[in-house]
């Protein structure tokens, strides 16, 4: 079982459902700042956040969600899951985070030590996703064992540098889904038996 734990407790309290709050810049920014602060402490490193890049990523994500949101209500849960993958795509497209030193408290062979910024952004997306899924659908998020395999993180970093859509597939994989690696960031192109898609006629 993975030693990587999601940290939903660090997310800011809100009177609104998380699915609403996460689409507000003020909550998203505060959540990201808190998550980064706690992760930095856990890893023994320092991160610098670029607010301009963070806001740009948030705005791109809003637009992506608006463009891809399905009209069919039966696909709501599947798209809900998929939306987290789009957040990671936008964060990794132009990282709003920079580690200013090595992760001194992380295992040298861990994903956190290998790529602190990518690790932090990924865990942020997974944690927000887990909190929202629990609140909205009473679902417990289980992480795929792939999260502990450093080779997947190597591949994640290398491929994302060339094609930012790759990170969408990576996040779906960590959530136990089979991504469509040809178009991992396109909801309509997802593998139909996955992500809670309705059965085909």
């Amino acid at each position, binding site marked *: 079982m993975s030693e990587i734990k999601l940290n939903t407790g660090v997310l800011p309290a809100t009177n609104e459902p998380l699915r609403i709050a996460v689409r507000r*810049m003020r909550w998203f920014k505060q959540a990201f700042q808190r998550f980064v602060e706690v992760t930095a402490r856990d890893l023994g490193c320092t991160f610098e956040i670029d607010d301009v890049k963070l806001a740009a990523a*948030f*705005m791109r994500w*809003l637009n992506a969600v608006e463009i891809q949101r399905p009209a069919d209500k039966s696909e709501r849960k599947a798209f809900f899951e998929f939306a987290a993958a789009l957040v990671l795509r936008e964060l990794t497209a132009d990282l709003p985070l920079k580690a200013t030193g090595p992760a001194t408290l992380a295992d040298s062979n861990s994903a956190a030590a290998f790529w602190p910024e990518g690790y932090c952004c990924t865990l942020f997306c997974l944690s927000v996703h887990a909190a929202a899924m629990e609140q909205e659908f009473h679902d417990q998020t289980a992480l795929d064992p792939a999260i502990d395999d450093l080779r997947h993180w190597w591949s994640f970093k290398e491929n994302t540098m060339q094609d930012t859509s790759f990170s969408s597939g990576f996040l779906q994989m960590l959530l136990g889904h089979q991504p469509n690696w040809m178009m991992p960031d396109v909801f309509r192109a997802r593998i139909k038996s996955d992500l809670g898609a309705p059965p085909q006629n």
Partner: protein
Amino acid sequence: MSNHSFHRPDAMPLREALRGLRFVLRRGGEAIAETFDLDVLPKPASDFANVALREAGDFLRSVDEIASDVAKNLLGGSAISALPLQDIMEKPNARGDFAVAFYVALTTVLRHLGAAKVLVSEAAARAAFDRLSGRVSEETVENRAAQLTFCLLNARVMRGTTAQQAALVPGASLEAVSLFAVMLWLQAARSDEENEAALMAASDMAVALAPEISAAAAEKDVARIAALYKKYVSHV
């Protein structure tokens, strides 16, 4: 006991004058410091000039501090209002309340964007609001906000924006982007506790939308600004 009611004098013109004085003093001090290279003067002229400029600088600083303190402490206006635009517009003294809220919010946004030295005119904001009030009110909030945005741009509520090269937004876009941020924030639902965070969020969003805002402002496209407000107000 007298039945006469006494109207509180309008402190806005005095605030405006003090802010203007502070702006001129700060700019003046910077200009003197940037203009003169005293090392090129022969002695003892350079020594005399150094002393004179140092004393002039001290004088400017002390007047600046007095003007700042009076404007801040005696005349108020530093708390960020949590009232949404719709509610402000329905108040009896809407023009005054709007201008105060607008001034405080805009100066906060400008500081956030790294352009703290821009002069904001509360009087011009009030005049812009008056111009909007004469128009048809049976419109959506975002349409009225967009119209008010252009009234504020036309009223030149900000002075000295072109000198702000170090800001997050280039000088040419600073006016439209910062006004957009304030107007977006004014329309957003927010609690007292979230008020400042919401203003910073609106400011970050406006920076991300800078190319679209600048293009719409340049084309005087009210509908486009209204559409941006409508699209993003629930995401502040």
